């Protein structure tokens, strides 16, 4: 009886820790993306992360939306209009549908993943614009692992981790499906740091991000994200190193936070 009770308690606590306690509907985070060249920062785009409620005839889901748009001064130079969406279960943040629509300096790509968690497959659809303007479409079935997520839901899942219980050096890895390939994203907790942001001076969790199996992010300790050390774990600052240089993401405003 005692063992049964203990097992039930452990199972319940695991379930609770896997529940979404951080992200609510109607949250809006606005960031400024800057390009860093020899210490000079140039603001290039605005990145918005929003959540909303989506209802179908059978269920209610959470829509996680990330969009990026370059500032007007850059539009004639290199116009970016990106839209990333993930439709997830509001409690578990399990993705069911992922859409990526990117328009970057004339380059267009659309990617859609329909997750089937029972058969552990993803129906992927890719559309690309050819040089002559016609659209080229590729449909594919991709096998995925038990906990494979998309890029957007992984970002939100990071905020849902129990970082307060972690000690510096602790790592958490996730399988992420990107461009029809499963990659492993690792988050390593570095420690706490207090930084000044546009939403005030905040004590933050400093987390290093590394991507195995892809060369999008360069360096092992060059990609760091700062999450507020409170119940909302708002990403307030991020530093990243990509093929074309260094960039920064700074929070501009945060509204509709759950806690």
């Amino acid at each position, binding site marked *: 009886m005692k063992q049964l009770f203990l097992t039930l308690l452990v199972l319940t606590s695991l379930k609770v820790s896997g529940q979404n306690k951080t992200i609510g509907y109607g949250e809006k985070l606005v960031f400024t993306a800057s390009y860093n060249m020899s210490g*000079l920062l140039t603001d290039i785009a605005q990145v918005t992360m929003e959540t909303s409620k989506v*209802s*179908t005839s*059978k269920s209610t889901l959470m829509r996680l939306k990330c969009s990026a748009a370059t*500032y007007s001064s850059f*539009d004639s130079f290199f116009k970016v209009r990106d839209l990333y969406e993930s439709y997830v*279960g509001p409690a578990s943040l399990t993705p069911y549908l992922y*859409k990526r*629509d990117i328009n970057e300096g004339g380059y267009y790509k659309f990617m859609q993943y*329909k997750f089937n968690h029972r058969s552990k497959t993803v129906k992927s659809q890719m559309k690309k614009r050819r040089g002559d303007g016609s659209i080229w479409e590729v449909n594919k079935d991709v096998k995925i692992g038990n906990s494979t997520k998309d890029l957007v839901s992984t970002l939100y899942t990071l905020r849902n981790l129990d970082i307060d219980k972690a000690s510096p050096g602790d790592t958490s890895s996730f399988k992420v499906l990107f461009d029809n390939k499963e990659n492993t994203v690792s988050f390593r907790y570095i420690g706490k740091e207090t930084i000044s942001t546009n939403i005030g001076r905040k004590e933050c969790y400093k987390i290093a991000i590394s991507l195995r199996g892809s060369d999008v992010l360069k360096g092992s300790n060059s990609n760091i994200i700062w999450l507020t050390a409170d119940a909302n774990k708002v990403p307030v600052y991020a530093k990243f190193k990509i093929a074309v240089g260094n960039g920064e993401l700074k929070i501009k405003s945060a509204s509709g936070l759950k806690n």
Partner: protein
Amino acid sequence: MKKLLIILGFIASILAVVLAVTPLFKLSVFPIIIAFLCGIALLYFSKKKKFKTKAIQYVFLLTIISLSFTVYKSVFQKAEIGDIKELEQLDETSEEDAIKELEDIEIM
């Protein structure tokens, strides 16, 4: 030495003007500094060896033009996002399409 400084000064000042008119205007600070240093060095040599100062004037003129552009843009240019009507429209249609797609997906 004089020729080298004149060539370097001209290249740096022209590059500074070009960068100052692009959205990456902040980067023009580096060529401005180089052109300015070349100009000062040329001024020093011209007084010492007494040669024509026409080239120095051009280097300084271009440097001042690019510096004015950079300062003006840094002070008055506000970071505003461009026309996002298309993106907003895409956002709406994409959500509508997604709801239709989600009807066929098994939600666990």
